[in-house]
């Protein structure tokens, strides 16, 4: 299994690597602490909610109820859920176009997200933004951006605002292995380290930039090293293990809160579905996908742990499964019956 073997071998490499950086070098991987019962159950429910939501979105897309582009997050759930567990109120989250998971993780309501996907009036953007463009000031979610890599300077700007105001909030700026090759990412890295901005760059390496595997697109495939020439510390994380993500997130966020500048976390993860709904994903084998799904699924792993540690019984988990399914089904029901935006909305929100 590519994602996992890469994760374990390279995090070893990460801990022994000498990059000649300062003595406070944080390169040694964060120790992974066990989750409490509450943490495991909460992570399980959050990840399952994202999984079920995305499956439902895929289904609605298949029925023609969701239009345009629709990029599903299935397989990567542990990344946003683990990171969110490391945050506090006031921290900001920003990402690219594969963003439904991030929204749900920040606490945005499934109804509002699904209604935006169906282009309805009570969607988070009144139906004007769609899958790739949703925001919630209240939850600290700054989008939802459709141009690959554009969110990276924006997220750096959120961190700039934190520093300008002298608060201890941290900007969590997500992007993928594809966006990691955009020039503006490095322009941002440079300014972030230069000005010691509190931003955690979370690179979600799901191994494919649309249909191009990392090996075919990246001269340096260890994305945690992409900040080396700017003196930004980085770490590779098993992004399928929510505990590993949380541990790395805690460490990176603390680094930022202490005023030490940016931090890079490369999450080794995997997307089960195609790049978007219209991608048949013929650039990889079914065996490759199946192997991740059967041996290293982020949700199955937590579920197995919950049973093993007797945090919950099968029946109790089934109850959670049913709650999640109802929550998601309600959102779909809402999103397919909410009216489209009033025509008067065509000309609103251009200026304020």
């Amino acid at each position: 299994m590519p994602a996992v073997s890469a994760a374990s071998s390279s995090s070893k490499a990460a801990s022994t690597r000498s990059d000649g950086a300062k003595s406070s070098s944080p390169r040694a991987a964060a120790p992974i602490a066990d989750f409490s019962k509450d943490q495991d159950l909460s992570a399980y429910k959050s990840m399952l909610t994202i999984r079920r939501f995305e499956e439902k979105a895929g289904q609605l897309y298949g029925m023609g109820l969701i239009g345009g582009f629709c990029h599903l997050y299935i397989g990567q759930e542990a990344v946003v859920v683990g990171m969110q567990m490391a945050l506090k109120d006031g921290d900001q989250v920003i990402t690219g176009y594969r963003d439904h998971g991030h929204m749900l993780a920040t606490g945005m309501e499934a109804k509002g997200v699904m209604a935006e996907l169906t282009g309805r009036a009570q969607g988070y953007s009144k139906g004007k933004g769609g899958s790739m463009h949703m925001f919630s000031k209240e939850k600290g979610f700054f989008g939802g951006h459709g141009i690959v890599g554009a969110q990276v300077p924006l997220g750096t700007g959120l961190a700039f605002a934190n520093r300008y105001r002298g608060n201890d909030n941290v900007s969590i700026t997500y992007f993928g292995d594809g966006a990691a090759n955009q020039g503006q990412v490095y322009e941002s890295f440079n300014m972030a380290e230069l000005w010691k901005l509190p931003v955690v760059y979370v690179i979600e390496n799901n191994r494919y930039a649309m249909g191009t595997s990392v090996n075919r697109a990246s001269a340096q495939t260890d994305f945690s090293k992409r900040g080396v020439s700017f003196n930004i510390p980085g770490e590779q994380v098993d992004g399928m293990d929510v505990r590993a993500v949380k541990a790395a997130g805690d460490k990176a966020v603390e680094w930022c809160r202490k005023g030490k500048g940016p931090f890079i976390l490369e999450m080794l993860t995997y997307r089960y579905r195609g790049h978007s709904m219209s991608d048949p994903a013929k650039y990889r084998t079914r065996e490759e996908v199946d192997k991740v799904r059967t041996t290293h699924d982020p949700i199955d792993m937590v579920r197995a742990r919950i049973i093993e540690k007797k945090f919950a019984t099968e029946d109790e988990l089934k109850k959670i499964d049913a709650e999640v399914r109802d929550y998601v089904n309600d959102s779909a029901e809402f999103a397919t019956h909410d009216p489209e935006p009033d025509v008067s909305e065509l000309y609103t929100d251009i200026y304020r």
Partner: protein
Amino acid sequence: MPTDILMPALSPTMEKGNLAKWLKKEGDTVKSGDIIAEIETDKATMEVEAADEGTLGKILVPEGTQDVAVNTPIAVILGDGEKAGDIKASAPKADKPVTEKVKEDAPSAEKAIAETRAPQKAETAVAPPPVQAANDPSIPEGTEMVQMTMREALRDAMAEEMRADKDVFVMGEEVAEYQGAYKVTQGLLQEFGDKRVIDTPITEHGFAGLGVGAALAGLKPIVEFMTWNFAMQAIDQIINSAAKTLYMSGGQMGCQIVFRGPNGAAARVAAQHSQDYSAWYSHIPGLRVVSPSNPADAKGLLKAAIRDKNPVVFLENEILYGQSGPVPKLDDFVLPIGKARIARAGKDVTIVSWSMGMRYALEAAETLAKEGIEAEVIDLRTLKPMDTETIIESVKKTGRVVTVEEGWAQSGVGAEIAARVMEQAFDYLDAPVARVSGKEVPMPYAANLEKLALPSAAEVVEAAKSVSYK
């Protein structure tokens, strides 16, 4: 209740596909995410995943079926405790006309769309809201007028707004220690410190995006581009991130930011450093575009731009930086964005321009006056929203229009003015609108060619005479 699996659309344009293969058979257990079938379109072969858990109770469309319409039930999933007998007898027969079946009992959701769309028949009747700008504030009698350069007026505008609002800061290349590449930010570092006057690396795309991010977080950045030519590296952030986010967020997330710097041709710097972006930015909904021609307007409008809650593109001109003019000495001199100014009154022909173009326009008006043609010269000052009303009112009086811009003619601001005049004052026109513009060539370096490439007062005079049939 048994759940239908529908033939999915895998792209927004897919209407039907072939059911190539079943990977599960009746009686098999399936869970969410399992691949149960393969379908083919003219574009690709795609996998169908189950979105529900249960047992595959019945396959309704056998493999090998061609042209199955999207949303046709292709199989039925049975939940816990359900039996194949629970499936409605009316389930469609496989190779019967599945296409029609869709219309009958498929997706209630489709009906839901139809219902919600129904009351909105008059969709074409929506009109854009009218643009209305306030008039210039009246300057109290006896107000002292101070002579200052455009550069000083711009600096004073920033300094006053920075004193008034701690969220306002300025960033860009050489704005702090060097005091501005064109000295527009002179003295700001000394007064406000390096937290609010920030030298950036040479990284336009990056710092423009960073500025937008800071604005999304509620700060009010002034982003200086050393020239607008370099902002082409940042144009994605200006348009896609700054201009569109308010709309894309349903009004939730605005972006109060000013992008400013010198625009247009300077002198002898050749093509890559001599371009007028007036038309480019004034094309974009969500942006305001301001381009003043004199120190007073520069001060009043930059203060307004900094206070405006929307992204503002503020196009200055290097040649005009050193030009002096009277600026009213008031505590808070702010001009309305979106309001043109009649720079010279006249009755025979209307000349419309802005920024550097005003120099040619006013010089031409002098010449014309000597020849008995009284030109009315309008300084647009703001290109978006454009003060069409002032132009139209003037045309009603003169019946003739000449536009003057340094930019190229095709899809230019002059073209837009001509179209609006035609649409709104056709019956008042006594001659076709004439455009004086930059020649459609990359700006040459040689002094003689550069002069030819730019508009001139003589060309404006000629155009004004031509529309006056003189």
